[in-house]
């Protein structure tokens, strides 16, 4: 089984990818502005919800229960969806999912598809797979369309083009749509997008969607969005193909009550999404007359097997952790080298995918805990980050590296009072070559990363314990 997460295989380490982004003043201004706006809106609608903490607990409990009995609920979903006229396909990995979807489209004689925002299709690299077989995908979610037309990569789970501002979107539209002139008001941009998209909606006969929730009890699928472009994709084509991760299933229709309160508030700071689409199989004479759903594993069962990390699968892709994260707020999403950016990306990508750069992701956090605090399904992201750091350390155990040697030596030193005190004395002497005017301004090696931006106060001549000893001896 080969697990793939977009183009993550070629991505550089987080540290390296972050450097050019930190220097991009326009991007940082855009990211700062957007995350501030969403964070404030979210705080407003969360604070008015008096049972917010109970809702979080309920959502966490529903997810934990569903994952515990995932096999049961997936089979229940398959049976109910099939009974309602849908076709359920199972895909172990990205390649199998792409093969199934390409096969379905070819079977229908399709050469184009319209897509409504589906991260899962980005995860499996569906657009590339379609293009390779001569099928043209058209992204219809406004932000995804901006990314596609600008040959860019998404930088946020909910707001993929968050790193672009209005003027930049205007330029992308003018170039891609061949427009001579275009204003940069939201109305002008929306009108241009509308004209461009309406033609696709009316012409293309196959839709591809993602899913926010799969309802085991009814076999229904739920997609929430803000624009109505999704509603077009879900209702106008003759055939609809949905691709969804197996963790998207929830037991009952009633459970939506919890998630549809948490998700919009966490994601966009809205009380409710403007468009909440729910459908179950097919209905004669109404909507797509063929419905296929591809249930994707792509590494999820492996995450499920890890007791400490399985809470990662609770994620409902609201993006609140990205907006709250002080690291994401500096770099934006591209530093994470995956369609899953921010804190959730830092735990999800390395679990889905073994690659060099994923080893850097669990360390792309100061463990400040802001992500856990806002997570609507209570994923303790810092706890999972530390767990995954442990995995990185174990995997690198055989390699000779300065960090692991220092850490092991330090652990020995700290395990004994005498060696600890000797190390304190050694530090007091060893630092003197680096001290000038009472401060340390340059350190060698890795520690030089500290002094690149910060000074350091030298170790004082007397430790606390020696002060204490002196005081005690004076008392006697």
């Amino acid at each position, binding site marked *: 089984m080969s697990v793939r997460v977009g183009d993550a295989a070629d991505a550089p380490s987080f540290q390296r990818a972050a450097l050019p982004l930190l220097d991009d003043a326009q991007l940082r201004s855009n990211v700062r502005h957007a995350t501030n706006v969403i964070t404030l809106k979210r705080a407003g609608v969360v604070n008015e919800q008096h049972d917010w903490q109970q809702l979080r607990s309920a959502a966490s409990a529903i997810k934990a229960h569903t994952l515990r009995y995932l096999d049961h609920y997936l089979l229940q979903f398959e049976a109910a969806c099939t009974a309602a006229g849908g076709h359920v396909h199972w895909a172990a990995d990205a390649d199998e999912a792409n093969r199934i979807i390409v096969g379905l489209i070819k079977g229908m004689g399709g050469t184009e598809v319209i897509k409504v925002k589906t991260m899962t299709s980005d995860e499996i690299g569906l657009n590339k797979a379609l293009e390779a077989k001569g099928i043209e995908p058209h992204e219809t979610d406004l932000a995804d369309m901006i990314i596609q037309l600008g040959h860019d990569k998404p930088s946020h789970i909910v707001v993929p083009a968050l790193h672009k501002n209005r003027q930049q979107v205007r330029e992308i539209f003018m170039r891609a749509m061949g427009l001579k002139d275009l204003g940069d008001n939201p109305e002008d941009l929306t009108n241009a997008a509308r004209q461009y998209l309406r033609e696709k909606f009316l012409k293309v006969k196959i839709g591809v969607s993602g899913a926010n929730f799969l309802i085991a009890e009814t076999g229904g699928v739920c997609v929430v969005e803000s624009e109505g472009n999704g509603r077009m994709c879900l209702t106008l084509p003759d055939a609809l193909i949905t691709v969804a991760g197996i963790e998207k299933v929830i037991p009952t229709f009633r459970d939506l009550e919890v998630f549809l309160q948490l998700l919009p508030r966490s994601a966009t700071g809205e009380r409710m999404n403007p468009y909440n689409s729910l459908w179950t199989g097919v209905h004669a004479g109404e909507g797509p007359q063929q419905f296929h759903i591809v249930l994707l594993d792509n590494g999820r069962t492996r995450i499920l097997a890890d007791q400490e990390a399985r809470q990662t699968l609770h994620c409902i892709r609201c993006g609140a952790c990205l907006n709250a994260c002080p*690291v994401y707020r500096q770099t934006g999403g591209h530093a994470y080298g995956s369609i899953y950016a921010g804190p959730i990306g830092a735990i999800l990508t390395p679990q889905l995918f073994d690659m060099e750069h994923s080893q850097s992701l669990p360390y792309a956090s100061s463990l400040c805990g802001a992500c856990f605090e806002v997570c609507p399904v209570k994923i303790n992201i810092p706890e999972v980050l*530390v767990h995954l750091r442990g995995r990185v350390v174990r995997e690198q155990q055989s390699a000779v590296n300065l960090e692991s040697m220092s850490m092991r030596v330090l652990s020995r030193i700290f395990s004994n009072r005498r060696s600890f005190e000797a190390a304190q004395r050694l530090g007091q002497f060893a630092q003197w070559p680096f001290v000038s005017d009472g401060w340390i301004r340059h350190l060698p090696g890795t520690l030089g990363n500290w002094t690149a931006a910060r000074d350091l106060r030298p170790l004082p001549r007397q430790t606390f314990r020696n002060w204490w000893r002196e005081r005690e001896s004076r008392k006697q």
Partner: protein
Amino acid sequence: MRISLFITCYNDTLFPETGQSVVRLLERLGHEIDFPLEQTCCGQMHFNTGYQAEAMPLMRRFVETFANAEVICIPSSSCVAMVRDNYPRMAASSGDSGLMKAVDDLLPRVYELSELLVNKLGLEDVGAYYPHRVTYHASCHSLRSLHLGDLPLRLLRKVRAIDLAELKDIDQCCGFGGTFAVKNSDVSAAMLTDKLRCVENTRAEVCTAVDNSCLMHILGGLHRERAGVRTVHLAEILASTEEDGVS
């Protein structure tokens, strides 16, 4: 009350004045201080960097050293968070039932300094005098692990002659994050810049916190900028009295 002090390895080595202030403050309030010399480090750096196996002997050492302590005071919220949040999980993962029980017995006796003063001793006014303009930085662990809320601010508001300035974006991380500051030093520096801007905008001469780790980071940036702002641990402010003079 007999209070055992876990000073933490970096306060012991880098910030002895913080430990001295804790001793001075608690003795002034009439308590007896005990400092077990066998203590070293809680294991936080090892645990959080992924060296969980290497943190295990340090936890055992902590648990043994403080087994008989009546009350344990730790002037560092991140070390308290290490003990409270991670020791139970580490003990459970060891499968050693004796260790699990020892950790369970220990936890209710562990207090961060402001928790000890306000929650355990019922004090807000500790008789301190500090004639300086001060801004308080809420460290991430104090906010989101210990949920200290406004405990440190309640103590600061009762300090005589203090001029407290509110810090904007008080809940934002300063970018330290232990080894994060070295492993992702550029992003960490960008986060620090935001924090320094907020600190400098308060026009405070002193920035305080309950964690010297954050303060070491903030001071590193302030000094590099020659901002002329000092950092001082909360314990040092609370230990100051009029008799000490203006320090």
